[in-house]
């Protein structure tokens, strides 16, 4: 009967009997590997972002999340309906437009100004009534009160 081969009884080697790599292989390998690495300027972040490399991965992940959420919030804010309150600079610029030109623009462009626009604008900028529209508070109130009751904006 054949004697059974037992691995424990076999002389143990640190590795299989394979031919060694060339004599200077391990001397040259680091240089070959370093030559294959992505170039420093490809890999390095631009100088403005270099500080990111000093943050821990957890902090960087947190920062990235905040940036993404901030981006969403900003795009949501910017894509929403126009703000009800026009910027002060815009109203100032509007003040500078001659009334006749504005009237001509509104008449020829087909833009329709609703009484709701008048209500919203004067509520946000009380001075616009006296400045650009040149109407008294009473005239303004009369105009707003005279709006038809079936105006869908207020139903």
């Amino acid at each position, binding site marked *: 009967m054949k004697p059974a081969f037992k691995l424990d009884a076999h002389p143990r080697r640190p590795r*299989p*009997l394979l031919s060694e790599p060339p004599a200077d292989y391990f001397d040259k390998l*680091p240089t070959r590997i370093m030559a294959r690495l992505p170039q420093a300027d490809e890999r390095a972040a631009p100088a403005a972002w270099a500080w990111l490399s000093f943050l821990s991965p957890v902090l960087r992940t947190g920062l990235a999340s905040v940036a993404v959420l901030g981006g969403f919030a900003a795009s949501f804010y910017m894509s929403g309906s126009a703000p009800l309150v026009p910027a002060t600079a815009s109203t100032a610029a509007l003040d500078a437009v001659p009334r006749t030109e504005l009237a001509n623009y509104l008449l020829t462009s087909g833009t329709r100004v609703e009484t709701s626009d008048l209500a919203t604008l004067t509520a946000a900028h009380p001075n616009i009534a006296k400045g650009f529209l040149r109407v008294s508070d009473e005239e303004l109130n009369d105009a707003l009160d005279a709006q038809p009751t079936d105006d869908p904006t207020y139903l």
Partner: protein
Amino acid sequence: MRLEDHEILLKFQHPASRNLAFNQLVRKYQSKVYWHVRKMVVDHDDADDLTQDVFVKVWKHLENFRQDAQLFTWIYRIATNECLNFLSSKRRKFLLPLNDVGAELAAKIEADPAIAGDEIELKLQKAILRLPDKQRLVFNLRYYDEMPYEQMAEVTGTSVGALKASYHHAVKKVEEYVTRTTDD
């Protein structure tokens, strides 16, 4: 002078000392990685390519290395995955069944002058090459590298119990093959 792992990692964090730190890392682990890979793929040229690939991957991902594992265990894991992917892609590329890759590797072993004349050693190597890749990996880590099972579990992502069972079966298969193929 050899740097400790934590010193290498610290130096790697700073752009000015990054290349130097990585060079030290390669010098420290190149031999272990090469032989780990070489045992799996047998051929020197394949082992050379894969060893370089491993270190390029280490370079790319070292910044994200979480120090809850040992650096070498992590590198071993990358090397292991590279080997398994290489063998599996070789099989897919040539539509080879499992045993044919083993046979190809065995032929390379047989042609290696280092093993010439050592009949039992040759049979042992052939027996090891007949094991499925993952079982062969477990066998190599335990038998040749004498790696503790806990560390093997980190490298392979397998439980200690499964690794012990795998090694036990691998040893049985190897012993049976060598016994069966040895003349009286």
